[in-house]
């Protein structure tokens, strides 16, 4: 400890011999680390926004279906409204919100035109807590409850059908028993969605109304679940599977593979960014240390003459790198955290032409994640110290006489 203390003291003082150079180096490390942490926060925010968006638009984090439904989303692939053990898990601590739905393809016809859409029989109160459509702004009136017999359709579907609020449309569908069913609905409201596919392709009515139409009393096609902790989906999926072994339970990564791929892409971008920033930083660090070692060659010769072992000389230079890295990391993290806190989120709508298509959100929250922080800091520290070994080794390898002759 005594010797480490000595080396640390020497390193600290040597650092401030050329204060200007050290400040520049510190600035580079600070900005580099800040750039890494900020990029990680942005990237994570992007992913979270993307996933949230995807989750919000109907799937939820986890969905439950009857076997066969995902290949053939027909009314006959149905299961009882959640009860017993399944209901216990859904109402338990792992779940933030859930909703049971009837969800089938139907044909909707106005006086002028017909369109194939997805009919959702919903419990409005539950949907509001779960998905965007449950909260979407409605021109007209929203659905009141599961017994509501009105129909809510997207604004663009209304345009397509050339119908307006208050008019009647007819919905034709295949019931659970295989027989065709149809029924007239009054269009009580038009909803808006940032996703045009929703505005064009979805019609909503009360759950009980849909069950009567399709002849599946007390049954549903889908339960969508929003997890209490999105980081721990596995536990939720396992609990649901255990509670309903006869049903199919899948999380969003299976249901929305594109979103999942996007998430991975962003994490790869972050790594490339880390690499670029780190290489710049390491280059500056190694160069500065080499310069410092060259300038102090005679001094190292003196240390050797006094009996300092080569590896303590190595330690001396290495401690200088350590100090720069620790100071730079502290400042860089501080800067990134302050910036992230001040900004809160980044509005990318100006750049996000086609964002909807790519499934991107327009306001990206900046999320500082403990794991990201630890990774960026650990990476810079470990690799920075590894890079500093080279100049330190150069100093330690000096032959004492040759170093002493240098004036």
């Amino acid at each position, binding site marked *: 400890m005594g010797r480490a203390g000595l080396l640390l003291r020497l390193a600290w*003082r040597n650092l401030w011999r050329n204060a200007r150079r050290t400040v520049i180096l510190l600035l580079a490390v600070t900005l580099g680390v800040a750039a890494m942490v900020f990029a990680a926060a942005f990237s994570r925010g992007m992913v979270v926004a993307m996933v949230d968006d995807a989750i919000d638009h109907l799937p939820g984090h986890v969905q439950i279906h009857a076997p066969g439904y995902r290949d053939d989303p027909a009314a006959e692939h149905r299961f009882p409204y959640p009860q017993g053990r399944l209901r216990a898990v859904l109402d338990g601590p792992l779940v933030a919100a859930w909703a049971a739905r009837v969800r089938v393809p139907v044909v909707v016809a106005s006086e002028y035109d017909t369109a194939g859409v997805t009919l959702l029989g919903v419990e409005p109160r539950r949907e509001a807590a779960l998905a965007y459509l449950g909260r979407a702004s409605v021109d007209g009136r929203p659905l009141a409850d599961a017994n509501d017999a009105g129909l809510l359709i997207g604004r663009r579907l209304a345009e397509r059908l050339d119908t307006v609020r208050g008019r009647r449309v007819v919905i034709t569908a295949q019931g659970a028993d295989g027989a065709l069913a149809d029924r007239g609905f009054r269009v009580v409201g038009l909803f808006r969605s940032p996703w045009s596919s929703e505005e064009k392709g979805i019609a909503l009515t009360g759950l009980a109304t849909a069950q009567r139409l399709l002849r599946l009393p007390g049954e549903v096609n889908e339960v969508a679940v929003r997890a209490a902790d999105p980081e721990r989906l596995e536990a939720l999926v396992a609990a649901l599977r255990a509670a309903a072994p006869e049903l199919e339970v899948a999380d969003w990564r299976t249901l929305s593979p594109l979103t999942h791929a996007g998430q991975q892409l962003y994490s790869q971008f972050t790594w490339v960014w880390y690499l670029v920033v780190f290489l710049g930083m390491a280059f500056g660090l190694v160069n500065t240390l080499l310069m410092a070692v060259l300038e102090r060659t005679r001094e190292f010769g*003196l240390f050797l003459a*006094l009996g300092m072992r080569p590896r303590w000389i190595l330690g001396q230079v290495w401690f200088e790198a350590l100090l720069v890295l620790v100071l730079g990391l502290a400042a860089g993290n501080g800067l990134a955290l302050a910036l992230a806190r001040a900004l809160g989120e980044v509005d990318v709508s100006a750049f996000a032409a086609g964002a909807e298509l790519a499934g991107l959100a327009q306001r990206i929250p900046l999320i500082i994640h403990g794991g990201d922080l630890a990774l960026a800091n650990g990476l810079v520290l470990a690799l920075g110290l590894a890079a500093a070994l080279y100049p330190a080794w150069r100093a330690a390898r000096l032959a004492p006489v040759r170093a*002493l002759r240098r004036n």
Partner: protein
Amino acid sequence: MDALVTLRAVTKTYRQGEVDVPALRGVDLDIAAGEFVCLSGPSGSGKTTLLNLIGGLDTPSGGHIQVAGRDLARLSPGERAELRLRHIGFVFQAYNLIPVLSAQENVELVMELQGVGAAERHARARAILAEVGLAGLEGRRPAALSGGQQQRVAVARAIVSAPDLVLADEPTANLDSENGRRLLEIMRRLNGERGVTFVISTHDPEVMAFARRLIRLHDGRIQADERRDGPP
């Protein structure tokens, strides 16, 4: 008496580009513990080379060197550093001190490397600095000390941990005669009172006058080796 330093047929040839520069051409020498040896000779005669070889800062081209019973050729660079740390003090002509350390810290440096505890270090460093006439200047960095004061700090550092041997390469060359004499008197006193062995290179006649043993080098060979009794 066993020799503290033994050189046998030591040669050193530097290579400068295509040319071989012989610096030592076969030196045999024994130095006993407690001696006060002056190494004289014109510039280029090989004084610095000889001191560096004895201190293990450089390796000979031929021959054998033993210091404190250890054959230097058998030691790794780390072990040679350890030998210097435990047994040898150095004083160079100039730039002897670590610029970022105060006088006191420079003196403590060697003890710190040896692992001496802080309290003992402080006490010994203060005492030795007082002994070389630098009481009150302990906290100054080298840049704030005169050339003579810096050399005294270097001598204090060289002897503070009671080494067997102090090698001083033209320690007074950059000092005026007043400061030079003062430094020599300090070294003589330490030699007399503590029995530290000194080997001092110089071409200054005033320094030679202090020596009990005067070795003259010429062209890399020992030309004369005289012992004198009881100089001033």
